[in-house]
């Protein structure tokens, strides 16, 4: 388990479904990545940046008050929210940024949904002295405005995308169009474990530091491994990052939480693995929310970073082998968890991470007291204050939401 085959398949999922124009660059990227992975100076440089620039390792924090309040398993939070720029996205961006410099690219381009990936790309562009263009759906620009301002301050050109649903999917289309046009000068830092091979593998590898640290910390702090790990799934990078080092520890349950938005019975969700069918979008074959004609469906989530109709191919594979389970949580339940963590522990989580929290609450009660759950707290919630405030003011002030639905 773990490495994709030569064509980039994890089991039946993955591959490369892209315009021919990109192929030479993708093959080159794969070659460079494989050689850099073994290159000591590259690894040292990345390690140094992750430590001194991004602030790693991030703590594995025992949430005592939350554990007591929930009255079930012990809850530990992997604090990706404490990294520089405030989400796990920086792990991938430092890796790919360094890679871009090594292969001589002068410009970074990227899509962003929540804006956390865009901010992380803009940040490493400054750090390495590269130009930077970020594509973001107009709807996301409005709901994650603080991150737009951060990117602009960091000198990134932020291009609003007006097509389709004006969210992450459409921003990704535009970034791919830019990439096809500027392939010789630009490196595309895909923000999640999606896209054509080698991206799903490469992004996972750069994010696996979350799981490696968590495992070491767990052995030290709890003298063993956790019983379950819970993480939210948008494209799947924070979840795969923390899951991956535990893949062979089969007693550790791996649970990915998708967003059921306004409810799975409505069309307003983004529960790709729970409700989708395999198909091709953005360069790989994986689960996809689509209609019977193969047109990609519009999605909905209160969390911009989860509002995406696709998912990384390795998750589709983990679903089919049963090694990981995928469940869903509604917007309302996530909002309740957002408020609950803020007020119980003084930690304001990203809305995306709140989906993992909401499911973990239910799981903690079900699994009982002598168990241990690690939640990947993928980011911090400063960016979400506007959205949350207006939802809470607008009568969505229901903080009693419970857990989630098994998917």
């Amino acid at each position, binding site marked *: 388990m773990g490495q994709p085959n030569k064509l980039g398949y994890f089991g039946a999922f993955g591959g490369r479904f892209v*315009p021919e124009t990109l192929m030479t660059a993708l093959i080159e990227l794969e070659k460079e990545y494989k050689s850099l992975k073994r290159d000591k100076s590259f690894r040292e440089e990345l390690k140094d940046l992750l430590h001194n620039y991004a602030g790693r390792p991030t703590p594995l924090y025992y949430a005592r008050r939350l554990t007591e309040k929930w009255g079930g398993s012990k809850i530990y939070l992997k604090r990706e929210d404490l990294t520089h720029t405030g989400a796990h996205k920086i792990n991938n961006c430092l890796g790919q940024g360094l890679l871009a410099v090594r292969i001589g690219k002068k410009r970074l381009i990227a899509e962003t949904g929540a804006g956390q990936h865009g901010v992380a790309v803009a940040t490493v562009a400054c750090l390495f002295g590269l130009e930077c263009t970020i594509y973001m759906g107009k709807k996301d620009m409005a709901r994650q405005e603080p991150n737009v301002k951060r990117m602009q301050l960091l000198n990134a050109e932020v291009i609003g995308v007006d097509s389709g649903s004006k969210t992450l999917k459409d921003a990704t289309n535009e970034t791919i169009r830019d990439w096809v046009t500027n392939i010789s000068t630009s490196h595309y830092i895909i923000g999640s474990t999606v896209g054509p091979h080698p991206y799903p593998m490469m992004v996972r590898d750069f994010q696996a530091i979350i799981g490696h640290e968590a495992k070491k910390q767990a052995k030290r702090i709890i003298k063993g491994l956790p019983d379950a790990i819970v993480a939210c799934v948008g494209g799947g990078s924070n979840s795969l990052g923390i899951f991956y080092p535990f893949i062979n520890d089969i007693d550790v349950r791996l649970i990915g939480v998708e967003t059921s938005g306004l409810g799975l019975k409505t069309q307003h969700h983004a529960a790709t693995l729970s409700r989708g069918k395999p198909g091709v979008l953005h360069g790989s074959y994986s689960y996809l929310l689509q209609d019977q004609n193969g047109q990609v469906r519009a999605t909905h989530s209160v969390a911009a970073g989860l509002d995406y109709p696709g998912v990384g191919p390795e998750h589709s594979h983990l679903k089919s082998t049963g090694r990981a389970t995928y469940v869903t949580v509604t917007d309302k339940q996530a909002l309740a968890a957002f408020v609950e963590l803020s007020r119980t522990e003084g930690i304001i989580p990203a809305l995306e991470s709140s989906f993992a929290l909401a499911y973990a609450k239910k799981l903690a009660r079900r699994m009982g007291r002598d168990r241990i759950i690690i939640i990947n707290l993928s980011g911090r919630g400063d960016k979400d204050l506007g959205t949350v405030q207006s939802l809470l003011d607008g009568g969505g002030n229901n903080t009693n939401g419970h857990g989630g639905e098994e998917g």
Partner: protein
Amino acid sequence: MALNIPDVFMTCRREQRAAVMPFLTSGYPSDKMFIELIRSMIRAGADMIEIGVPFSDPLADGRSIQKSSEAALANGIDIDRTLDLAREAVNGQLAPLIMMSYLNPILAYGEERLLRRMRRSNFKGMIIPDLIPEEGANMEQLCRKHEIDLIYLLAPTSDRKRRKRIIRHGSGFVYLVSVAGVTGTRKALPRSLKTWIRQVKKESALPVCVGFGISNPQQAREISREADGVIVGSALVEIIERAPNKRRMIQDTQSFVSQMKTQI
């Protein structure tokens, strides 16, 4: 019955000219006008016509074809309607049709189910912009079985090894993408284009047709000096978009294709 693609190139070679290949999005701007426009292209002498199945996420397309694609989707166009419209538009004509579709609508419809139905609607070829030869084995085999030419794209960035692979695995013709980029009209074509077409022609046993960014009959003429065929899409969509009324839409489309035809 429509000609097969190799027959078209044979005719063109005999007449010492390149093939003219206009593109139109299926069901654009409406079912009825689509049929009229296809017929006007044939009247003007189009040798083959490429018909685009609309897709929600056309990531190899620029603004014009994105918009026509959105309009067609809003108009309820799917693969079944495309097959019906195509059959109606060109019944009894010689010009073969080529289907252009992103992979996902084909997968959702069922590859074999589609291929089985294509010839009845005068489709003789298939272009899938997000399918590369490495992923094409299954499609190639099914296309052979159902006598549909699978036409691969070849890009300016394709190195020698890839060019070889594309030429070997494709059939019908090689679709040479004129620039690294998406579809859309461009004021000027890259200066290196000529030598590059020559290079690919030297390597290819298949005819070589050039598309992406060809905006006017003059550009078509330049390219036709080197290539076996010229594909024009966005420029036509823009003509249709700009036309003040239906009569002009048909007139302008027809005269654009005629001009291409006389220029090359």
